């Protein structure tokens, strides 16, 4: 039995009285690869931000390793969990190495500077994600794929056991998408980190993750094994439209067939 890492109990989030998340409960275990899917506005990003304590939760509880979220200092939380936000396209004014090095911030002593050890960890993170060659480039000059990988490298340097990713492959071309998924798989399988990723790509959620959470209008529609979601009982209810399925020619898993319209 794997260790329980995050226990979300009856989580509710409201903005100005408007409910964003309602009564959300599920658990995340060590080395989980969990995808959160659901239609636009379902509250996927908000859920990640509640876990990172960017949004203060309205009611309910979140436990990390048995300890309530509010008992962590932001720094201690950051040692446990790291976050790769959705790209907002805004200018980021640092080089890749400096940015990844800032991932070591939660391990910094008050008023301290980064040590040789920190620098080594940052360089290792660049090595693992195979972007050492662009370490001196400005973040603003990177392609979307490189930028996303630099963010993952920074999250790795942070040394947390849990990685939150918000649509890490949106806007990426197929090759970079593949690259990002391979890095995530490596981080999950060989480094033993827990991956929690928000995605719109239902196929990849089913093929790549162990477990899936489906959100709709702020409530949990499904929590469970990723193999079982390819079913209109589940998906059509969540997305208000039926899907057509076929079999993956190599793995024989069920996948969604893209819509074809008559020409």
């Amino acid at each position, binding site marked *: 039995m794997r260790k329980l890492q995050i226990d979300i109990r009856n989580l509710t989030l409201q903005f100005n009285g408007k409910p964003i998340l309602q009564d959300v409960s599920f658990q995340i275990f060590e080395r989980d690869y969990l995808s959160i899917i659901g239609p636009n506005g379902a509250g996927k990003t908000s859920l990640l931000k509640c876990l990172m304590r960017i949004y203060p939760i309205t009611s309910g509880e979140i436990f990390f390793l048995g300890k309530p979220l509010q008992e962590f200092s932001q720094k201690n939380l950051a040692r446990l969990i790291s976050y790769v936000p959705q790209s907002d396209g805004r200018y980021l*004014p640092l080089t890749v190495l400096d940015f990844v090095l800032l991932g070591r911030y939660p391990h910094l002593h008050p008023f301290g500077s980064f040590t040789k050890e920190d620098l080594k960890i940052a360089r290792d993170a660049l090595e693992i994600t195979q972007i050492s060659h662009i370490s001196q480039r400005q973040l603003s000059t990177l392609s979307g794929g490189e930028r996303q990988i630099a963010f993952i490298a920074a999250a790795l340097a942070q040394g947390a056991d849990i990685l939150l990713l918000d649509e890490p492959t949106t806007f990426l071309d197929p090759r970079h998408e593949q690259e990002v998924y391979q890095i995530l798989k490596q981080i999950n399988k060989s480094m033993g980190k827990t991956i929690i990723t928000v995605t719109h790509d239902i196929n990849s959620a089913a093929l790549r993750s162990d477990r899936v959470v489906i959100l709709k209008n702020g409530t949990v529609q499904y929590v469970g094994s990723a193999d079982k979601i390819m079913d209109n009982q589940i998906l059509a209810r969540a997305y208000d439209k039926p899907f057509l399925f076929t079999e993956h020619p190599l793995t024989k898993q069920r996948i969604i067939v893209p819509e074809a319209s008559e020409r």
Partner: protein
Amino acid sequence: MKNFRPAIFYGLIVFSLAVLLLAPFIGMQSISLTDIFSRSGDQVYSDVFWKIRLPRVLTAFLAGAALAISGMVFQAMFRNPLATPFTLGVSSGAAFGAAVYVKIGLFFAFLGFSGQILFAFLGAFLSVIFVYGISRLKKGFTTNSMLIAGVAINFFFSSLILFIQYLSDFSRSFQIIRWLMGGFEMIGFRPVLTLLPVVFFGSLIIFFLTHEINLLSLGEDIALSRGSDVQKLKIFLFFAISLMVGSVVAISGPIGFIGMMAPHICRLLVGNDHRFLAPVTFFFGGAFLLFCDILARTLISPAEIPVGVITSLLGGPFFLYLLIRSKEEGVFV
């Protein structure tokens, strides 16, 4: 860190200190080294140097350093090169506070700070909170809406200052106008001694928080996810900036655009890592305002141009240049 270029970093600091050393010798009347220590006969030069030039040069340097480093923090916090205490109305807030103090004719001091400085600090702090509150109201606060908010706050406080002038008698009104133009016409070391501790502590807070400022320049979500306590951090920074901008405005009037030009030039030269940028901006900002003040003293000597007029004449076009550039590329620098 390959990105750190020691030649440029130390070069800029040495250059700035050299400007500070030479500045008191430059003016309508050149003064030589032997003059200032002369004890025999005519002591005019020595008096000019010790009682007028040196205090003025030191005040201008401290003011420039404080305005530049405050501008640097605002640029990082709002992630925009056009966001500075001057453009967002914080200087106007401080000016209003100081004008209120002049108008009500109270004279008091608290912990060694004059009432005018305390009023200017309160005015500055009020407008900082105001600007930040507005920027939080709307998600995805764009450059345009931020600048418009700044313009609105500037208008608001300018009208209040006009109102105070209208209520004041002629001489006091002129006093306020002249002060609003910005300048360092002063005698004696009092302003220096007032500014020194404020700029020292304000800058010290900022120097200690350069990692955190780096994180803020990446956005609040990233700063939080790296473990920075963003709310507490912002209160510290707002306090330091209000203190420095308030004191400078109370002493020299609202001098514009130093907080935009100096950090921007330094960003181009040393990059955006605030660990290196903060000290360079501090010294370069001081030298930059000092340079403007030398122009103010000498361009049409024996008369003087208010230094605020010089910085605004330089800053206006600079502002437009940044605005046009930032529209094209949406960049930070």
